[in-house]
């Protein structure tokens, strides 16, 4: 009996069902400890595989088949996807601008000012004339700009010598 127990490599190979290493095989046949360890770990891994696969089969139903739109989008080369994105953006922007223009056209009539009628103009004129008359009576007649004395605008100026003192 060989008392050198299985190395990790030999153990892994036998656990995976690879019995090519004759020396390791002979050792397992004669060593109860290694046999027990292999059986114990092998059944634990086997149980875990069985249970985890059942668990995954139950949960995998949530993984749906990707839609063709998603598949085609991803299958497109980088430049193609960029071009498509630019086109979609352009079309969307065009549609947006078009809709805005339409809304401006629709809303325009509400902002248009209708031309006043002749009666309204006559009323406005008479009102302005009466205001003008009223002002003339209170303040006196208007003085033409040419008659104003320009020098009067400098009356309040002080000589520079006074300011400096």
């Amino acid at each position, binding site marked *: 009996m060989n008392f050198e127990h299985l190395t*990790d490599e030999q153990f892994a190979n036998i656990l995976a069902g690879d019995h090519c290493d004759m020396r390791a095989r002979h050792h397992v046949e004669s060593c109860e400890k290694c046999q027990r360890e292999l059986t114990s770990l092998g059944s*634990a891994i086997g149980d875990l595989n069985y249970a*985890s696969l*059942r668990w995954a089969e139950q949960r995998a139903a949530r993984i749906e*088949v*990707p839609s063709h739109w998603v598949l085609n989008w991803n299958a497109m080369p980088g430049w193609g996807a960029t071009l498509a994105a630019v086109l979609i953006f352009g079309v969307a922007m065009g549609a947006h601008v078009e809709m805005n223009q339409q809304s401006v056209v629709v809303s325009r009539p509400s902002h248009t000012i209708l031309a006043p009628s002749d009666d309204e103009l006559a009323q406005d004129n008479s009102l302005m004339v009466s205001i003008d008359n009223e002002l003339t009576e209170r303040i006196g007649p208007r003085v033409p700009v040419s008659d104003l004395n320009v020098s009067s605008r400098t009356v309040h100026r002080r000589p520079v010598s006074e300011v400096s003192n």
Partner: protein
Amino acid sequence: MQMAMATDVLRLTSRERALTELDDIEDLVQAHRARLLRFVTFSLGDEDLAASIVQDCFVKAWSNRHNFRGDCSVQTWLHSIALNLVRDYQRTQKFRFWKQVRKTAADVTEIAGLLPSAASSPEEQLLARERAREVAAILQTLSLNQRTAFVLRFQEEMDLGDIATTMGMPINTVKTHLHRAVRTVRARMGGRR
């Protein structure tokens, strides 16, 4: 010369077959979703995140099906895509947040509770469930590479060559990760001192 031609023909035939399999997205999802979900759940420890990554994996596989060379099985190819997505996700900040919150962490007790109940006595069933739960809990403490190597070897029953393809590593590196994982599991299960 003839041998090489025969190998090429075989590879082309298997590629054709795989492309047909990959073309039918519904069949592809039906056939592989459970195993992929299990693999990603064990890799990340979160059920919702795993479901989302498996969905992305199918979209990616279907979109890139013309790049499939037929060097490995469709299952191996899908697992390598899923593993790349897992690695990408683990690098993000979002994953660190999910890891802290862990609202949808896969419940190992619930998984172990799905063991068959008719075969043995209640005591034996309880013991079997406890040991399966223990293995699942130990797997969560391993590094991603060790856990991936262990799960692909003992759950997905892949050979070392396929594991190396899936993980994108040389076989010897895969062996190292696998043996370290086995050592930890053996030690924690009380078998090796």
